[in-house]
């Protein structure tokens, strides 16, 4: 099996994630889409590590996972706080900077 299919899959996942971030309004879903994009890039890292025959890409993917974990903690905390104060998890409601 051609190894470049992994890269195609990574690109498709990344695109789905990006479109999801742009079109969805629910903060949780947007958040999940961000995770999807991160994981798509992880897949690309691992694939390149395989192609090049070294471990650099795999190490990078570990870093990404750690960053993603931290991001989840902070992001979910923000979303929960927002929901508590506004009774809504829509990202369009959080447009205070505009006003």
């Amino acid at each position: 099996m051609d190894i470049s299919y992994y890269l195609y899959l990574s690109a498709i996942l990344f695109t789905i994630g990006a479109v999801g971030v742009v079109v969805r309004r629910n903060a949780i879903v947007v958040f999940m889409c961000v995770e999807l994009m991160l994981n798509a890039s992880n897949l690309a890292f691992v694939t390149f590590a395989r192609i090049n025959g070294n471990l650099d890409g795999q190490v990078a993917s570990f870093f990404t996972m750690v960053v993603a974990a931290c991001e989840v903690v902070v992001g979910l905390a923000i979303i929960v706080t927002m929901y508590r104060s506004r009774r809504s998890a829509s990202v369009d409601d959080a447009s205070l900077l505009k006003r």
Partner: protein
Amino acid sequence: MTTSSHLVYLIALPLFSSALLLLLGRVADKWGHLLATLISASAFAIGVAEFIAMHNRSGAARAATQKIFSWISVGSFKVDASLLLDQLSICFVLLITGVGTLIHIYSIAYMSHDRDRRRFFAYLNLFIAAMLLLVLGDSYLNLYVGWEGVGLASYLLIGFWNQKPAYATAAKKAFVANRVGDVGLSLAIMISFAQFGSVSFAGVKAGAPHASKAALTAIGLMLLLAAAGKSAQFPLQSWLGDAMAGPTPVSALIHAATMVTAGVYLITRSNFIFDAAPTARLMVAIVGGITLLFGALIGTAKDDIKKALAASTMSQIGYMILAAGLGPVGYAIAIMHLLTHGFFKAGMFLGAGSVMHGMDDEVNMRRFGGIGKFMPITFATFGLGYLAIIGVPPFAGFYSKDKIIELAFNAGGTKGWILGIATLLGAAITAFYMTRLVVMTFVGAQRWDEKAHPHESPILMWLPMGILAIGSVASGFLFNSGNSLVNWLAPVLNANGIEGGKELMKPAVVSILALVAVIIGVGIAVTKYRSNVPVEAPENVSVFTKIARRDLMQDAFNEAVLMRPGQALTAGLVKTDHYVIDGLVRLVGAIFLGSAKGLRRIQNGYVRSYALIMVIGALALITTIWVVTL
């Protein structure tokens, strides 16, 4: 040259008294007028003492100087604040302080009902100080300080009753017209500094023979402009009539006897420039000739007694300027007419003030008539002044005016004929309007209404009038006997006997011609105004009368030629500023504002759209890199 140590008191005393009265305010109300009068009288006493001392000296030692302090010292340019009292300035010092003191005395009674009498006297003393500085300064720069000082005093006194807007406007008009003349004086000072490196009379006199004719002519013309502004000469004459808004003693002192003659002093003092610049001197004579007819014509149509006298002043100063424009001996004759005019015109103004005092401040001559019976002293003193101004021998005006007419004819050639006929014509018109004034005011039917009670003025008022009347009678004879004034002034003016073109007429012929002109003028006026003077000025009059009533359209001319274009210019500049300068600035602002308005749409506050922009940006970046590396 003698050095003196007390010339400065002539100026310092009235200046100090003026400052004191202004600073003390109402505290000095009770005695302010007495102090001011005393100070003026002591200045006169100093003047008399100086005159006697000067008379006892002889030759070059007659002129006295005093250095007060070193004023400007920049490199080679040095100006001292120093005073020069010579044969010319002493004439003015005596006139200013003498007539000034009489008018101070007169004003004590005239202004007795005015609650601001102290302020009035403070201004009068300020005027005396400034005028003395004007005639005593030994350089054009010192003269300039006095020149501006009398302008200020004149402004303050014309607008003394500035609660009336018309009076305040008259003061402003005088101020503005004088500023135009002052530009001339400052330019003359600058040119003479550039040419001679000095602005003192002595320095300029020493440099004048070596200077170019063009520079001398330029200085002369600028000095003439200055003189025209201060002495109400054509074309800057329009302010004098309105200056009559001031209290009558002011009209007598400033706008008849002294300040308005400063222009004559300036030209006479600058004789060394005008002697070397014949073109400028011819212009002086022409301006004088125009103004003497201009003022006389205005005088024929005025019903306001003070404005008629003001027009007459303008005309008489025209005579002086004309004389000053006619060569070395003309300067002395101009000064002679200036001094005699100082007596009779100040006397007549005080007489007019006395009439107004008795007639509840009425100035319209059509509402006078027959006042002579009720105010015999005023009538007598005014009558003597009248005989002097129209030039009846042996009164003062006869000697001085006759000399000017003679001098004008002797100027030679076409110039002599034109100027001579102008002066003769002026003499006839003067006789006409002065007779008209006297007849309408003092004789004939009584035309005032029931309420007026004409009465003679108090002694404090008629005494100065009487003294001035004596001057009107005797001064001409005194100045003329043995050519005393001409000889006295000769060292200053380089005037040694009459020179000029060939004599057109013998002096006796001129005198007879002048007398005939006067008799014609008087005759016409008497037949026309002896009886039935309508109380209201007739409306269906010839177009010439209408023009003369409107001061020969001088205000209309100024408005059309100077004021309207000036306003159009400023309006244009305001529009340019508004649309071009401000427009550019506003355009820059509008560009940034408009682009900001467009850019603001991107900042819609939605996270999704920011994310989209990031995606698009990243895509653009990647595409760029891809295209570049391809």
